[in-house]
């Protein structure tokens, strides 16, 4: 795994991970009402003065949502790019509330797993400027 970083992303593996969660993902993408009720239930969103980057639905749609739309056909740069959204912008505290029952932290957890499977995860020893 350590030299995984140099290898190209295993898009087939990502696609099969996505496949397994298809029903849940569809629900997020098709039924999220963009009602922004979840926004105010996220303490990070509130703490960042309503920065949309911290809105629960935004975080999912712009990470997992994009992954799903691209059917896993992404490169390392893409995964590195969503790292901030799924790690820095969400602490998986489970506080957010979605009126149609979308489990946001679970989706973010799942996105993190996909990143991890390709060796993309935050560097706690100083490599990440936002930590």
């Amino acid at each position, binding site marked *: *795994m*350590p030299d995984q970083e140099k290898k190209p992303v295993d898009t087939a593996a990502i696609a099969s991970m996505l496949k397994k969660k298809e029903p849940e993902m569809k629900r997020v993408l098709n039924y999220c009402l963009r009602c922004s009720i979840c926004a105010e239930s996220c303490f990070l969103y509130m703490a960042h003065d309503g920065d949309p980057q911290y809105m629960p639905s935004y975080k999912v749609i712009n990470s997992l949502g994009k992954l799903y739309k691209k059917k896993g056909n992404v490169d390392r740069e893409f995964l590195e790019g969503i790292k901030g959204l799924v790690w820095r912008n969400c602490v*998986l505290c*489970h506080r957010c509330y979605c009126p149609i029952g979308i489990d946001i*932290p*679970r989706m973010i*957890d*799942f996105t*993190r*797993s996909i990143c*991890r499977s390709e*060796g993309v*995860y*935050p*560097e*706690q*020893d*100083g490599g990440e400027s936002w930590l």
Partner: protein
Amino acid sequence: MIIAERKPLDEIKDMVRGYKRVLNVGCGGCTSICLAGGQKEVNTLNADLKKALGAEDVHLEIDGFVIERQCNYDFFEALDEKAGNYDAILSMACGVGVQFVAERYPETPVFPALNTVFCGADRDIGWFEESCRTCGECVLAETGGICPVTRCAKGLFNGPCGGTRLDGTCEVDKDTPCAWYEIYKRLKAQGRLENILKIKPPRQWENQTRRSLVQEDYKQRYIG
């Protein structure tokens, strides 16, 4: 945050020796942040174990996997799918996580790869300091935000003891400031010395039984 450190390799080696297939599970929470049990550390430990056991002609099949938090079953789904394929599980979470994993898979031996050391803060990258012993009856309001339970070697509540060195360091270590000297200085600067002039009576320790906590707003949900 919980701070942990990796156990000596020999100790971990002795735990897993004898198992053919082992899964090493990292934690994306505290032990990632304190650089003891995140994804990187899982990879390193696996490589170290393979090498060490290889030198003894023992072939170990060990895989790594990280879940975001081992202290909440909401994050276990992916692990549930894998756990059954292994003879033993190593956990690189704190003791909380190890126990939660062991409870989840009662048929499988689960071993701790870390020593859970304390609750502390990050002074800098890779440098942590203990600051709370989770005593259950926080006295920081009276002690100027400096914990005597953790930082006074004797855990005194009416300190300082007679052993404080002349320069204000603790009797047990000339490089450690006496907690009570620090408390005194801070309260004095804030004009709040009266806080520690009163006698603090013997406290009611919370160490009798396993503690559990339901926050006020959730009482109805769990207790009714």
